């Protein structure tokens, strides 16, 4: 419930007080069996402050996750790698990381898998192609929305 309102000072506020009214909230049945209903939910304003990503931003995040990709890795994922050079480059990258890592703690299979995945995307060029496809799809979607009578002027 809102706090007690102080006496208004300006004439417009006085006029507002004369014509404003307040009815009690409606009695409604809150839905059950939803995760949010049991754990509580953020208000709309709170949700506005958090950063929900657009579809494109989410797709880019999934394609090039920041926790995995260093600048080198990002370049490998985007660049086209010649198939003949793939194995040699893979060997070089794995060897370099393995030699710099603490051998008591590192996992060779993890290192190999990581570089293989990053470079596979690069070899097929799929990272760049995926993003371009998504960009095209997003643009087409927006165009369709505008033509169908969206909010645009």
């Amino acid at each position, binding site marked *: 419930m809102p*706090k007690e309102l102080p006496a208004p000072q300006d004439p417009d506020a006085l006029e507002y007080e004369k014509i404003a009214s307040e*009815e009690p909230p409606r009695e409604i049945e809150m839905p059950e069996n939803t995760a*949010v209903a049991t754990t509580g939910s953020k208000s709309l304003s709170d949700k506005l402050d958090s950063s929900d990503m*657009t579809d494109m931003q989410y797709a880019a995040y999934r394609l090039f996750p920041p926790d995995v990709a260093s600048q080198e890795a990002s370049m490998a994922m985007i660049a086209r790698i010649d198939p003949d050079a793939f194995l040699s480059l893979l060997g070089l990258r794995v060897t370099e990381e393995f030699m710099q890592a603490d051998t008591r703690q590192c996992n060779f299979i993890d290192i190999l898998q990581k570089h293989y995945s990053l470079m596979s995307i690069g070899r097929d060029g799929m990272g760049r192609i995926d993003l371009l496809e998504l960009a095209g799809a997003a643009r087409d979607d927006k165009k369709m929305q505008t033509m169908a009578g969206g909010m645009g002027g």
Partner: protein
Amino acid sequence: MPNTSAQVYLVGGMPGAGKSNTVVGFIVDAYKKDPNVKVYANFHLFGIKYVYCSVALMLKLYKEGILDDAILAIDEAYLVAEARRGGNPLTLLMTYLGMQSRKMKLTIYIISQSGRFIDWRIRLIKSHEIYCQKYNPKTHVITFSLKEIMSGREKNVSYFAPQYWCYYDTDEKLPPPAKLIDRAIKYVTNEPAKVEEEGAEVP
């Protein structure tokens, strides 16, 4: 949402996508933050202090210069700013209201299924565009996109809708202007009855 931000929000989406729910969410959050905020709406609100503002009252308040420094919510906005009746006095006045929203310190929420239903001048002056994409009946989450026109920034927001259900009635109907209905009835019923009585042919 501060009431002195003076923004014009165009809120669109398919029926049942959560347009009114979203606007009520903005209003309720603003009211909880500042109970002194003035709220005018052309539909009924519950649980908060506001002015139920029929179109006639809204225009009267505008004329008397009282409608300022407030939140104004207009549901079914095509009833007051119909795109095909741009020369209509009501549409003209609503357009002027929108254009002077900054000087009047009004935050205006204009709700309509499509922007095409509303006079294009109001579409032109919008500061934000909200498009309600969907309401998920299983999770009761509404998802909308919010676009800031000046910067072009866009973001998707999802929130739990039922927390605002007690503040408004989703089934409330807003009647069209009475004179318009009368004119439409006259249009379809005028003349033919008289002609039949005299036995003349209907042209």
